């Protein structure tokens, strides 16, 4: 492997680098347009957003408002048409090469010929982690997503929700400082979903990772986030950024299932809902409800 990039190295590099206090993601005046047969699609327009290191930010908004596009730009899978975008003070490309983020896509995207364990091990394998270390890490991750017994199964033998959990484990494999997650819990049942949410909050707190999290569920966004970014479509814009004031939980470690029943939780849910509807209704289309994710784009 000529281009193995041990994660420890990249972390050390940025520590010694000048900018120790760089934001995880810094976006200034970002535009993204797609050239299509029927004309130009303004997927994102004038996006300004800062995600601090260790901060949990959710993106919410109706289907097609550019959430996935923004995530792909941060992940350097696509390039902005104009504007600035830095990840830990570096260009998105450099951050990708340095393996500064882990990503879970809207679809699981597992390799069908690899077992569950081998799928989770893939990034570790590509970056030359020794096989003994790899095995313990994979075992830990599978334990966390509750799939220990399924380690030797193949993806086609799992349900959609289980596949998604494997993908989440894979995105966490290298303990990235930034997690990009595009509706990762969309395919999960409510019970598993709540459990994964609680786990994710804990993992993010433990590792101090910043998270950019796309979701269609308002309660999910409220429960997880430090701030909720509300977006509106055509063109994709940020219409509101709402800080979550959940008295129950100043530190994120303290977010647990009790919080779901706290009154401050419901206040925040209401606030986000109003922002969503308000943001959408000042456009041409009067108050389209934030559709819950069915779009598979």
């Amino acid at each position, binding site marked *: *492997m*000529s*281009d193995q*990039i041990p994660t420890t190295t990249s972390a050390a590099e940025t520590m010694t680098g000048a900018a120790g206090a760089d934001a995880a993601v810094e976006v200034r005046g970002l535009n993204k347009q797609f050239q299509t047969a029927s004309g130009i699609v303004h997927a994102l327009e004038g996006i300004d957003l800062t995600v601090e290191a260790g901060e949990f930010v959710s993106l919410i908004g109706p289907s097609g408002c550019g959430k996935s596009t923004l995530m792909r730009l941060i*992940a*350097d*899978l696509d390039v902005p048409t104009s504007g600035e975008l830095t990840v830990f003070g570096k260009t998105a490309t450099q951050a*990708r*090469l*340095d*393996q500064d*983020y882990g*990503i879970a*896509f809207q*679809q*699981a*995207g*597992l*390799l*069908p*010929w690899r077992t569950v364990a081998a799928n989770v091990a*893939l*990034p570790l*394998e*590509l*970056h030359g982690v020794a096989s003994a270390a790899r095995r313990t890490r994979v075992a830990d991750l599978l*334990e*966390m*997503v*509750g*799939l*220990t*017994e*399924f380690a030797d199964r*193949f*993806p*086609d*033998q*799992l*349900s*959609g929700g*289980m*596949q998604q959990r494997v993908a989440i484990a894979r995105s966490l494999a290298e303990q990235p400082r930034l997690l990009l997650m595009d509706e990762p819990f969309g395919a999960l049942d409510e*019970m*598993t979903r709540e*459990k994964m949410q609680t786990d994710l909050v804990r993992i993010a707190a433990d590792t101090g990772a910043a998270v950019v999290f796309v979701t269609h569920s308002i309660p999910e966004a409220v429960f997880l986030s430090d701030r909720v970014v509300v977006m509106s479509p055509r063109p994709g814009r940020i219409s509101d950024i709402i800080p979550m004031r959940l008295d129950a939980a100043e530190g994120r470690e303290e977010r647990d299932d009790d919080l779901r029943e706290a009154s401050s939780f419901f206040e925040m849910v209401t606030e986000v809902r109003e922002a969503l509807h308000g943001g959408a209704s000042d456009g041409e289309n009067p108050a389209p409800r934030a559709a819950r994710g069915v779009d598979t784009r």
Partner: protein
Amino acid sequence: MTATRNDQRGEVAVRPANQSGAVANPARTRLFGGFLWGIAGVVLIALIWEGYKFFGPDNGVLIGELRVLPRTTDLAMPHLWDMLTRLAEPVTRADGALPLWAVVALASLMTLGIAAAGWAVGVIVGVVFALLMQRWRLAEFGLLPWIVISQTVPLIAFAPIVKSWGSRVEIGSFEWQDWMSVALIASYLAFFPITVGALKGLQSPDRIHVELFDTYAAGYWPTLVRLRLPAAVPYLLPALRLGAANAVIGAVVAEVSTGLQGGIGRLLIQFAGQASGDPSKAWGPIFGAIVLGLVAAGSVALLGMILKDYRRTEEAA
């Protein structure tokens, strides 16, 4: 964490129970079923053969001047048991002559070796072409049309010319052998389906998988080894099978047209020439050729069995 354990149990309780039993068996049942069908097919053909020979008119079935079904004389259609007993008898009346089956087997083995060499060359050339074309779009535009056109040149018809070219090749101590001309023609027929199949396979990974490897900053080689090649297997296997069949046909026909001694192609012609005196003998090499084809196809099928995990899809079955 406790919640995990619980729902794990729930899933575990349902899944392995109906899987360990259900997954292993269908494959075996299918294999067994395929075997039965194969035997049934052979028996059916034998029945039709002997049935027609028994009931059909000596002179065959004619419509006007046109014979639409063959004569049923022993000369044109020997009894199956005659063919089989003939296999056990010596080839010629000369002393110490090998039994027919052994001669056929030796010849088949030689042809199989030549076809395998041709197939191997075809695989290497085909995969290299596919790798080049996958890596560089420009190579695809530049090469693919020529590769397609190459197949319109019936090299097999020029076999004698290929042989005479070959006989002029002499590099140091290396001397071109006649069998190499035959292998070359076999590889020429084999590489085409392999090129096309491999290219399609290498290009087959979904965008999401390619992008995943991008996010890992994986370069060309890691992506090739861990993504593109495994993803190509389902496309490669049928291509390899087709290539094997082409290599066998190419080898047999090229043997005939270059007049190479010792292979099954030569034997087919030679014994067919003796058919008026010994009609059953001509069928020996025909059986040999059939077995040869089966062995070639079977070897690739074996390869497919070894690589079975690479033929899975992402979706639940």
